[in-house]
């Protein structure tokens, strides 16, 4: 009897694949269905945003930041605007701050809706995805009302906003928030509590807090591992210290702390918390105030550098901006959360099956535009 000869197979997942959330390529070394090594190959969407930024005036960089994380353009713009404002030392009108928080949190809901929906799609549930997108459309309607665009807004400008919100916006946002809670219950019914879904996500891709911090994982993925680190709480920027909200942490309800299900569920809970923040911000929103009053005529930050971090839906979004006193930034480095979040996949994905790698990838919620920049 000769011994059965078995060897590992290299499987190319992507760059054209339904579940790689863009043009990501994963080189999987597989032993049957078991994956023994994952090597992400990125860069297919590289547009050199940072090189662009070095040739453009400060305000002209804003649309490009939105195009990096295209699912959370408001958050990206907010972070960049705050970084430059910090260099300039601008005091913003109250109304601007409140509106920015409202938009950033609405964007967080929209982005998490995509994350939750596509995670469902990755494990085979198609319908919740459509439901999530239905709610996302309502948020995009609100954005369209305010900025005129549905995906890439260029709405948050350095020192203010492009326009004030139109009349009726506040009422419409309240309307959305009122309906939203019921929708979340619906997702929980159809997906969160579903036994098949739990089987697919629980105990899969467990990320311990040590691994998460060491790999620079941030955002909901880190909090699912039980690390209470939300920049909105630990280092409140903008006016986040005025709102009362909880930071949902992974508790391992269905399995181990830090598994894919926790990462998913933290996002579901965060949507509710964001809705809470939006509601509070709407309640406190000052009626008066010119959103354009603080926009500087010429943006020439003093010589120096700043690293500003904010909590984007995907995690810590950092902007490292260097100025030499001219109207063009010397260097804009975007510390993209998804870039670090993706790098952990080999660590947490080894020893699982091909289907699980898809689930883990979905639970990390990556956006390739931001990874490749």
């Amino acid at each position: 009897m000769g011994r059965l000869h078995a060897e590992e197979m290299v499987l190319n997942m992507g760059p054209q694949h339904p579940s790689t959330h863009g043009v990501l390529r994963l080189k999987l070394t597989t032993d049957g269905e078991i994956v023994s090594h994952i090597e992400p190959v990125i860069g297919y969407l590289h547009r050199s945003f940072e090189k662009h930024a070095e040739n453009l005036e400060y305000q002209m960089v804003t649309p490009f930041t939105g195009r990096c994380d295209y699912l959370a353009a408001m958050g990206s713009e907010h972070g960049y605007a705050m970084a430059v404002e910090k260099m300039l030392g601008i005091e913003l009108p109250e109304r601007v701050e409140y509106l920015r928080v409202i938009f950033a949190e609405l964007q967080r809901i929209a982005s998490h809706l995509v994350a939750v929906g596509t995670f469902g799609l990755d494990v085979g549930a198609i319908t919740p995805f459509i439901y999530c997108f239905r709610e996302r459309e309502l948020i995009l309607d609100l954005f369209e009302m305010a900025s005129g665009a549905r995906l890439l807004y260029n709405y948050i400008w350095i020192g203010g906003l492009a326009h004030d919100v139109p009349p009726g916006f506040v009422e419409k946002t309240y309307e959305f928030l009122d309906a939203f809670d019921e929708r979340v219950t619906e997702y929980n019914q159809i997906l969160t509590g579903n036994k098949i879904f739990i089987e697919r996500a629980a105990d899969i891709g467990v990320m311990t807090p040590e691994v998460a911090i060491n790999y620079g994982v941030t955002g909901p993925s880190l909090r699912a591992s039980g690390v209470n680190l939300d920049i909105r709480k630990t280092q409140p920027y903008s006016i986040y210290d005025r709102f009362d909200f909880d930071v949902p942490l992974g508790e391992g309800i269905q399995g181990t702390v830090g598994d894919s299900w926790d990462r998913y569920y933290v996002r579901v809970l965060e949507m509710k918390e964001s809705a809470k923040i939006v509601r509070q911000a709407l309640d406190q929103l000052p009626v008066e105030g010119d959103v354009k009053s603080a926009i500087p005529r010429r943006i020439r930050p003093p010589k120096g550098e700043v690293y500003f971090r904010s909590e984007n839906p995907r995690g810590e979004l950092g902007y490292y901006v260097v100025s030499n006193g001219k109207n063009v930034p010397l260097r804009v480095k975007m510390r993209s959360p998804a870039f670090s979040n993706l790098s952990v996949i080999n660590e947490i994905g080894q020893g699982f099956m091909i289907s699980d790698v898809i689930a883990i990838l979905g639970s990390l919620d990556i956006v390739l535009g931001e990874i490749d920049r």
Partner: protein
Amino acid sequence: MIQSLANWILSFDILSGMGQSIAWGISLFVVSALIFAFVAVNAIVLVYIERKVSAFMQVRLGPMRVGKFGTLQTVADALKLLQKEDIIPEKADKPLFVIGPWIILVASVVTFAAIPFSDTLLAANMNIGLFYVVSISSIVVLGIVMAGWASNNKWSLYGAMRSAAQIISYEIPVGITLIAVVAVVGSLNLQTIIQAQAGSSNLFHWIPIPLPNWFIFHSPFLFLASFIYLIGATAEINRTPFDIPESESELVAGFMTEFSGLRWALFFLSEYANATLVAFLVAIVFLGGWQSPFADYKGAQISLLIVTLVSIMWTIFVKTKVGRLSVYPLGLSLLLVVAAWLFPGFAVWLSSPGLFWMLMKVAFIIFLLMWFRWTFPRLRVDQLMYVSWKVILPISIVNLMGVAVWMWLSGEIQF
């Protein structure tokens, strides 16, 4: 049906000159063509229905452009598929690549030969009909493995291997649940199985709720068996939540990845043929086939009355979104009650067996399959095996024993 068709042909004076064998051959050809036409049209209709059902469940509209409400959409799609370039990958194993889809299609079409559509409408009245259907339909896996291997694509190979493992695993519980029914009837002939479900009786024969004498209501064990069979059959035809061989988010399209145009259409055709076949089997084995749900004409009126009462209670007490669903059965049953009381002829028609009832039951089962598909996520391959070997198989074996005990206790068999 073939014999009667041949006899009918020979009954004409002009044609009686031809030999018995020629008439037989002609009718054989006609019947096969009819079955194939049924399968093809069925697929086109079902694809449209599936798209509409999924759309409604997903708050969409579905196809709306081609024809009124998009009714001709799948016809257009089929025409498009026929026109497509026939691509065979360079490194593919060409003969297998070409044969694979056809084997799958043939295996799923041939099974319809034994399926009784009504008391007279069936191609071949085999005394081993059930065995024939179950065994032939598992040839499909051969074609799937061929297609997956021949594509020379790692994704296809994964899909084929998964499919082979899955179909073979689920054959066993499915077979055992069917054996439970066969044990009750004592025959493998599908017509005999249906005829054994005529009339009406109480639920499980002793709870005083008048119900049709279907095997699903025969005993608690067969009630359970019907659901086990439905689950196993869903897995056998590779539909969600057991669609891992072609799970589009993992394996791109599984064993179909490299196929396009007509060959891909064949996969589609056989997929829906299989779904229909499973629905037929559930209807025949557990839901009384072409028997009417109303055992007799008085029974029709009483049953409808009960449905109405239940619906009214439901509407009153369940005030959720789902509770409002009962409006539909309520309205329907009220309509039928009124019609049945006013027109006794209608009641008689309702209680008589026929093709209509068969197709209604099949449609219901297919809708159930679609409902599953558009609600559930997909299992992982090892979980699928777990469900098969550790959940469904033990339950079905216990169930089989339970059926035997039940029959012994109820005096249907004696030792």
